[in-house]
């Protein structure tokens, strides 16, 4: 299976970290702001040639850890070492030539984009030395790589958030350091520039730099980072390759959410889909939760089951054959349904089980699926609903492959139930309570 293949790759990546050794390393770092302990003994190693991602919920200490690695804050305990030497013993100018840091956002000022990027060269110049041709060339190259050269002469305060972020990255690149520390480098970027930023980070890593970034988006982090560190309440709770860190169990523990982690269609890296919040959904209080039964098939009920589950309702489904897209979703979301072999006709036994689910539901929703002899019983069972909602096809027709039997059942159901559009289902369901 793909998951296992990728786990092997991840293990190789971690082994690579160990083999290359960390260039910049924090050991049991403790940082408190007043009473609040922000980092509670976090350890992390940043190795050359790799992109290391730092992920975790808001307030878990990601930015503080990155700033500690950059030597910007004093630790209450623990140490940060560059090449095995304590960062506190490294002269600040020497440190600036080795470690570049890009903050999440920056102050408002009237320097032009090019002036700002040129400042990345300061650590390489004597106190009274002006920037020379080589500094200009390096600045220009950095701006070209981040796609910011076209607004080199514009003042920073006239640029958009995303543009500023890219100029800021160019400044960090112009610093020409061995370690590149980036705090959420892609948050205000559009897709195209997210990709450009990540590609630039990858080039830096390939050139031998140790790159570390705080990432907000888990799927993006999993897709682009070689090694991940998952933080929670100032501690590292998991580290390793993407498949080792981005797991359903880890995310449930740290974020209190139910998620599905599956290989992303193209890269095969872990991709996270949110199913619901573990300890009740804040949006819907328990009293408003409704028991909804969805009659569907061949993928017609997927988004409905997902949406209703996210809203905090209890969802059940009909008889679903193995391999059916709706059955896959029901399985992943943990939705009770009646299982049957692929493409089989619903048996009497299955029908009895199904009708029990229909009777227990507050509302039954019938999707606009194709009906043939195999699943006709799913449709017939809807007649036992306490309250019935029918989703219509746009042209009002029935997708009938049962020689008119389905059309006849539909006509009967129309008398008992209410016709709604797909988008109105959720609000119709919620009017029950």
């Amino acid at each position, binding site marked *: 299976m793909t998951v296992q293949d990728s786990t092997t790759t991840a293990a190789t990546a971690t082994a690579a970290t160990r083999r290359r050794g960390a260039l910049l390393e924090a050991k049991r770092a403790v940082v408190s702001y007043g009473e609040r302990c922000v980092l509670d003994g976090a350890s992390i190693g940043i190795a050359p040639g790799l992109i290391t991602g730092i992920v975790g919920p808001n307030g878990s200490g990601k930015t503080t850890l990155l*700033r500690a690695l*950059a*030597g*910007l804050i004093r630790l209450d305990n623990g140490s940060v070492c560059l090449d095995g030497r304590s960062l506190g013993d490294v002269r*600040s*100018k*020497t*440190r*600036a*030539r080795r*470690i*570049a*840091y890009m*903050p999440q956002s*920056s*102050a*408002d*000022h*009237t*320097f*032009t984009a090019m*002036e*700002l990027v040129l*400042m*990345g060269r*300061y*650590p*390489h110049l004597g*106190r*009274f*030395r*002006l*920037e*020379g*041709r*080589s*500094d*200009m*060339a*390096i600045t220009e*190259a*950095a701006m070209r790589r981040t796609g910011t050269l076209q607004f080199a002469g514009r*003042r920073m*305060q*006239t640029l958009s958030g995303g543009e500023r972020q890219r100029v800021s990255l160019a*400044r960090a*690149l*112009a*610093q*020409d350091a061995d370690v590149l520390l980036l705090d959420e480098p892609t948050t205000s970027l559009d897709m195209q520039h997210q990709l450009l930023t990540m590609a630039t980070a990858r*080039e*830096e890593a390939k*050139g*031998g*730099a140790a790159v570390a970034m705080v990432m907000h988006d888990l799927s993006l982090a999993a897709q682009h980072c070689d090694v991940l560190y998952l933080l929670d309440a100032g501690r590292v709770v998991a580290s390793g390759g993407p498949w080792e860190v981005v797991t359903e169990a880890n995310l449930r523990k740290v974020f209190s959410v139910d998620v599905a982690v599956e290989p992303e269609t193209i890269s095969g890296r872990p991709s996270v889909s949110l199913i619901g919040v573990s300890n009740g959904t804040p949006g819907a209080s328990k009293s408003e939760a409704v028991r909804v039964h969805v009659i569907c098939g061949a993928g017609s009920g997927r988004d409905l089951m997902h949406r209703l589950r996210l809203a905090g309702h209890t969802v059940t489904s009909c008889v679903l054959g193995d391999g059916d897209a709706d059955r896959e979703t029901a399985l992943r979301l943990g939705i009770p349904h009646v299982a049957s072999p692929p493409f089989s006709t619903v048996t009497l036994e299955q029908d009895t089980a199904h009708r029990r689910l229909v009777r227990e539901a507050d509302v039954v929703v019938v999707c606009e699926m194709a009906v043939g002899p195999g699943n006709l019983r799913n449709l017939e069972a809807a007649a036992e609903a306490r309250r019935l909602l029918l989703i219509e096809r746009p042209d009002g027709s029935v997708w009938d492959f049962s020689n008119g039997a389905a059309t006849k059942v539909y006509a009967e159901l129309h008398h008992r139930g209410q016709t709604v559009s797909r988008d109105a289902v959720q609000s119709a369901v919620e009017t029950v309570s």
Partner: protein
Amino acid sequence: MLRSSVRKHSGSLAASPVIRRLFSGAAVIGLLLIIASLIALSTGPVAITPTDTLSALFEWAGFGDSSASRTQQAVIENIRIPRLLLALGAGAGLGVAGATMQGLFRNPLADPGIIGVSAGGALGAVIAISTGFATTSALFLPAFAFVGAAGATALVFAVGIMAGGRSSMASLLLAGVAISSFLGAITSAVILLTSDLQAQRQMLFWLAGSLEGARWESVRIVLPITLAGLAVVVAFARDLNLLLIGEDEARSLGVRVGAVRALLLAAGALLTGTAVAFIGTVAFVGLIVPHSIRLVIGPDHRALLPLSALGGGLFLLIADTLARNLAEPIEIRVGIITALFGAPFFLFLLIKNRSRADSL
């Protein structure tokens, strides 16, 4: 990666836009300074033609005989040249201190007086006059004013650090505003409680600022201190640039933020304190000069600081020349002139450059 083997190559000066801006700015202000100086030296109760002024200057410098009369020569050498140099020195100090404070506090409204220097200096001067020390020696008044300025600055620092820790510039700024008001109240009380009308008048005069007391002794103190302060601040111009873009950025680019801030604040306090001690409280120089220059050449402190020194000197010289001559034989206080002409000029710049003036 941008691994550069060419890092060691020295850059050509002409390639740097900063140097171009600095030189063209200095040329313009320098030319205006020469014209303003000639006018300043030629005008006053004893009228002297510009030709005689030039020739008097040459004689003073040791070249040839002056075409000016003995009286004219004496007026230029003993009254007008010291007054000119004091205006240039104090104006330069206030201009540079203003540019430094605005950069440090990252606040366009920061003024050299914001860290309590002016209020402390005023209180010191008022005490010197009310206790009678000011009449015993001419240097007692500036000495008291300087001690007051330094004391108030130290107090603001102490409170700012207690309130916000070493890194909080906001608490330092607020402490400065509060302590300035507090000291201002004490100064007002001292003035109102002084029964000697002559002394009271002297106090109010001092508060409005003036270069009337300019002597060679004051020039010999003000100029070296101002030049030293300017040298320190200019040496840290690049660090100021980095502090302006952000504290984390500055630190990650190798600036020792705490030490640099303390040094620059001390230099700013020294520059302001020296000026305040000799010319009293003169408002607006530290605010409008750096802002005007910033609007023309941009925020780079490597050009901004030296040009603010030149511009501050020019501005104070023009203001003083106007103060001396507008209502002759009465001399208007220079502080009134700087505020009267400075404020509208500043408002004009604000409106004209409304997109750029609201930040640094």
